[in-house]
C-alpha cells in the first residue's frame, strides 16, 4: 500500500468536519414550502367568515385577473403586523381574498374593526381543509393566484414593507 493512502482516513475525517462546520453556519430554513406552485387551485367552496362579506369559491379566482389569497386568522399575532401592508397593497389596486383558519365570525369582525379590512371576500376554513389542499402550513401565508386560478407564488410568514413591491412584481408576472 502506498504511503498517501495512510492519510486517507484523516482526509475524510477533515472533509466531514468541514462539511458539518459549513452546514452549521448556514441559516436553517424551517418552512415547509407548498409544492402546489404552478398547479391550479383545488375545487373548494367556503362559507363567509364574516357577516358582511361573501364567502369564497374557486370560481372567484378565474375571471382573468390575478389576485392575492391571504391565509390568516384573528387569533394570529403576526397577522396584526401584516395588516397595514395588506392595506397598502389594497390601496395600490390589488384584490385580496382572505381565508380565515379556525375562526369565529365575531372574532373576525373584531379583528377587521381593529386592524382594517383589506379583503373583498373571506372564506371560513374551520377544519383547515382548504389550507391542507393548497399546501399551506401556517398563518399567515400569502399566495399569488393568476387569472386562470393557477397558484404562482407562496409567501410564508407575515407580509412586511419590503415584501409589498415583491408581491406587486409577482402579480405583474402573473398577469402576463
Amino acid at each position, binding site marked *: 500500500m502506498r504511503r498517501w493512502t495512510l492519510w486517507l482516513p484523516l482526509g475524510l475525517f477533515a472533509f466531514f468536519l468541514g462539511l458539518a462546520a459549513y452546514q452549521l453556519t448556514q441559516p436553517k430554513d424551517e418552512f415547509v414550502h407548498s*409544492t402546489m406552485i404552478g398547479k391550479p387551485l383545488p375545487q373548494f367552496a367556503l362559507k363567509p367568515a364574516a357577516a358582511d362579506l361573501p364567502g369564497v369559491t374557486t370560481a372567484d379566482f378565474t375571471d382573468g385577473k390575478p389576485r392575492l389569497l391571504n391565509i390568516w386568522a384573528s*387569533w394570529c*399575532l403576526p397577522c396584526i403586523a401584516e395588516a397595514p401592508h395588506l392595506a397598502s397593497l389594497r390601496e395600490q389596486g390589488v384584490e385580496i381574498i382572505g381565508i380565515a383558519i*379556525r375562526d369565529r365570525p365575531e372574532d373576525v369582525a373584531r379583528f377587521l374593526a381593529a386592524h382594517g379590512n383589506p379583503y373583498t371576500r373571506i372564506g371560513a376554513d374551520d377544519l*383547515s381543509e382548504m*389550507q391542507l389542499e393548497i399546501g399551506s*402550513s*401556517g398563518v399567515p401565508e400569502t399566495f399569488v393566484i393568476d387569472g386562470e386560478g393557477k397558484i404562482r407564488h407562496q409567501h410564508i410568514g407575515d407580509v412586511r414593507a419590503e415584501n409589498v413591491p415583491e408581491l406587486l412584481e409577482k402579480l405583474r408576472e402573473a398577469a402576463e
Partner: protein
Amino acid sequence: MRVVLVALLTLLAFPLAAQDSMPPAPYAYRQLDDPRQEAAAQKLMETLRCLKCQSQSIADSDAPMAGDMRHQVRTRIAAGEEPEAIRAWLVERYGDYVSYAPQISSVTWPLFAVPLLILILAAMILRRRIGARGDA
C-alpha cells in the same frame, strides 16, 4: 432554589404564537368506530409529520393543525381511501418532508444506494485480504 423554580416555570411557558379558541375537529381526538380502520389510520398518522411542530408526528401532536390533519386522515380512511393514497395526497402538497416513510426518488436514491455500495466495497476488500492471506 429560586433558579430551580424559574427553570420549572419555563417548562410551563406557553408558545409565543397564539392558538385559536375553536373546538378541535370532530375526528381529531375521536377514534373511528371500526377498530381495523382506526388501526390503519393510527399507523398512517404515526408516519406523517406535524407541519407546525416538525419533530412530532400528527399522532403525537396537540397542535390544532395536527388535529385537523388527523380528522382528514380518519375521515378519508372511513370513506374507504387507502392509507398510501392519503400519504400521496399530502406529499403532492407538501413534498417528501411531510412523510416519515422515505420513498425512493430522483433526490433520495443516494441514501439507499450508498450503504449498498459501501457493503459491496467492504466485501471486496475483505475477500482480497482473506484471499491474499490464503496464498501466503
